């Protein structure tokens, strides 16, 4: 697949950066001319991934969160969220709805939501090394996309 555009963002795992991550990703995705619903899905998915890094990867310290965004031919947005944190010992268990190690304030629905709000979710993780979450979402081509023609 041809890569049409890409950006990388790195920031510390402070919860105040969650809103920044959502805004940065939706600003990059805007060139695909997504609908409001699609932007909502993208913001929700990235919010879950970044929150996981803050809550689970770096529970007792501030570490770096790396985001790479790419646009592939065919209107596909790829979001990669990587950390060098604790890692996930059992990915299948972590993906189970309502399972959480985060206590009362967490719902255990993060991966379920990432999965249902995007088209494709891949998780790679190694305890003590870190976790890498890759999500892909196809953005609908809108008929009469004048704005898209102007961009190309």
């Amino acid at each position, binding site marked *: 697949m041809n890569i049409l555009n890409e950006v990388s963002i790195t920031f510390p795992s402070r919860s*105040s950066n969650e809103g920044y991550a959502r805004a940065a990703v939706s600003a990059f995705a805007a060139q695909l001319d997504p609908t409001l*619903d699609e932007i909502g899905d993208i913001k929700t998915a990235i919010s879950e991934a970044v*929150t996981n890094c803050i809550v689970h990867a770096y529970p007792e310290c501030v570490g770096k969160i790396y985001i790479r965004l790419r646009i592939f031919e065919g209107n596909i947005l790829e979001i990669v969220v990587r950390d060098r944190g604790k890692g996930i010992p059992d990915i299948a268990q972590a993906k189970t709805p309502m399972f959480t190690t985060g206590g009362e304030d*967490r719902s255990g629905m993060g991966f379920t*939501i990432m999965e249902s*709000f995007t088209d494709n979710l891949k998780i790679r993780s190694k305890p003590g090394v870190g976790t890498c979450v890759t999500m892909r979402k196809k953005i609908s081509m809108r008929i009469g996309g004048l704005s898209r023609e102007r961009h190309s």
Partner: protein
Amino acid sequence: MKIYSERDNGVLTVSLSGELDHHAARNAIPEISRLIDTELPVNLVLNFERVSFMDSSGIALVIGAYKRASSIGSTFSVINTSKQAYKVFNAAGICKIMNIKEPDAITVKN
């Protein structure tokens, strides 16, 4: 995130305003618990009209408030959710159990 509360007879309406993520929920969850404990409502209503974004942190907040309200025999409902927030609640399958009202399809918001 800002939290406003209003009491009318036994009805405690808690209105949230802003983006409800993990950062916001850390303060909002204890604040809502405190309101329930001090007001001891007969009916608890969470108003999401001014919640501009919500992720799974909102699920934990709603479940927590639902449990606390149920423990004192209060009814519970969530009103005025956006399409985005409702989709998150729906992914967790809690809309019916927790009386989360479906967004009005006719009203155009955002």
